[in-house]
């Protein structure tokens, strides 16, 4: 692909004390989430206390990387920073049950449908980071299986 030589332009994530673990993992092509060490519930956006049992103990666990599309839009004007063409932005609900805003790639905007299954991929950004993005779930035999290695 002649795209490989191109420098990334997408904005790097905004790191906070609470979100750094997520973005650091994404740069290593891992899609992770906070999970309560005591009651086992996932939580997103990240926070220092479990709202279910109020434990402050938490594990960072790798997820299936699979989810479904709830909504999708195309920001046209003003042009989003970091994109040559308007990206598709969507809200994804992960199989683990929480929602995240991301890009939907490798599919025409018009072909996306509600609850369409998707899987995680990783897009490079400036400052040598990566962010999780989503593409249509590939067939089982497809060699383009997601990073994170199930099966």
């Amino acid at each position, binding site marked *: 692909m002649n795209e490989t030589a191109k420098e990334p332009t997408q904005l790097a994530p*905004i790191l906070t004390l609470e979100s750094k673990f997520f973005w650091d993992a994404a740069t290593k092509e891992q899609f992770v989430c906070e999970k309560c060490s005591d009651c086992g519930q996932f939580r997103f956006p990240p926070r220092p206390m479990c709202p279910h049992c109020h434990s402050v103990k938490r594990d960072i666990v790798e997820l299936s990387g699979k989810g479904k599309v*709830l*909504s999708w839009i*195309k*920001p*046209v004007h003003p*042009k989003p*920073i970091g994109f040559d063409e308007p990206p598709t932005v969507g809200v994804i609900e992960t199989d683990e049950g929480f929602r995240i805003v991301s890009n939907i790639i490798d599919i025409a905007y018009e072909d996306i449908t509600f609850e369409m299954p998707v899987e995680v991929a990783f897009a490079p950004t400036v400052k040598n980071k990566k962010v999780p993005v989503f593409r249509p779930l590939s067939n089982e035999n497809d060699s383009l299986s997601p990073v994170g290695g199930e099966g």
Partner: protein
Amino acid sequence: MSRQFKEAAIAGIGQTEFSKSSGRSEQQLAAECSLAACQDAGVDPKDIDGMITFTLDNTDDIHLARCLGVENLAYTTRIPGGGAAAVATIYQAMAMVNAGLCENVLIWRAMNERSQYRFGQPISMESAFAPGSGTGSLSWCMPFGAQTPASWESLNAQRYMQKYGVTNEDFGYVSVQQRKYASTNPNAWFYEKPITLEDHQNSKWIIEPVLRMFDCCQESDGGVALLITSLERARDLKQPPVHIVGACQSIPNEVEVISNYYHGGDLADMPEAYATAKRLWAQTGMKPADMDVAMLYDAFTPQIFKQLEAFGFVKPGEASDFVKDGQIDIDGQIPVNTNGGLIAEAYIHGMNSVTEMVRQVRGTAANQVADVQHALISSGMAGAVLARG
């Protein structure tokens, strides 16, 4: 002086001109509109004892008090949540007066939001993600190209469109209606500039397939202020008092203004507006049919549909037909945003909607609704019912 419950009222309103370039500092706009509110009420600014604004306001409370010559301030606070704060300022002022802790509460919002900085442009503004703003989750949108309020709103509104089969053209009827109101309101930026549905459909896409240019509020310079006191005292002041019958705020679990994707419900819904409505109707013992006019926060046209449904003027999914049928026009079932709203009058972060509601209750609005007894004002996360005092 012992503390006793006192009913609260809006005694004064003040504003600067609304423009795209004020030519002076936000602090000066704040001072000018605050003085105007005091003069409208007939209250000496030195007697202000409470001051309330938004966390996002750039002016300084103490510096404003110093401009006005406030003698002995008793209370200051700021409300998080961007424009959702608008009606929560009235709620806070009402509570302080009700509790007998303040006699003259000043509310203000001043912004050079066109000439100095622009809310509508992609942001990297760190302040939006800072603790205290109530909008921290916006940081999770930025790398993906969702960098404007229009894009954040659209991630919810697109789901609303899917769910109820609504199109951008349907949203256009809100825009046409509000421009019609503005066309006969001399305060409005779009005074004498009505549009047709065709004009709306010809305006450029901001966010496909949800928002065109004419679905979006303006970026404006200007300041708006209110003076809240007890109903009893307001009756002795210059203007007919506008009674705050009830006011409330509601922030349901996992709800966040504008980046509102993390609650468990359908993205098409606006859980904070449903919760505000429930709390407000319970507090006041009133219902949608009791309202004669409504101001609904309109950063973007889809928010009108969602609030009409949340407050119970129509059932979920029915707002589109209701609006298309002319029911939010001056002679409709519930006239909405009669000054042209944030889309067509000006965008002073929802506070110019409050002054319009006060004028409607006083009977002095440019587009006056006949015989206004009760008025609803909503900024999504907060609401209030006003009445003649």
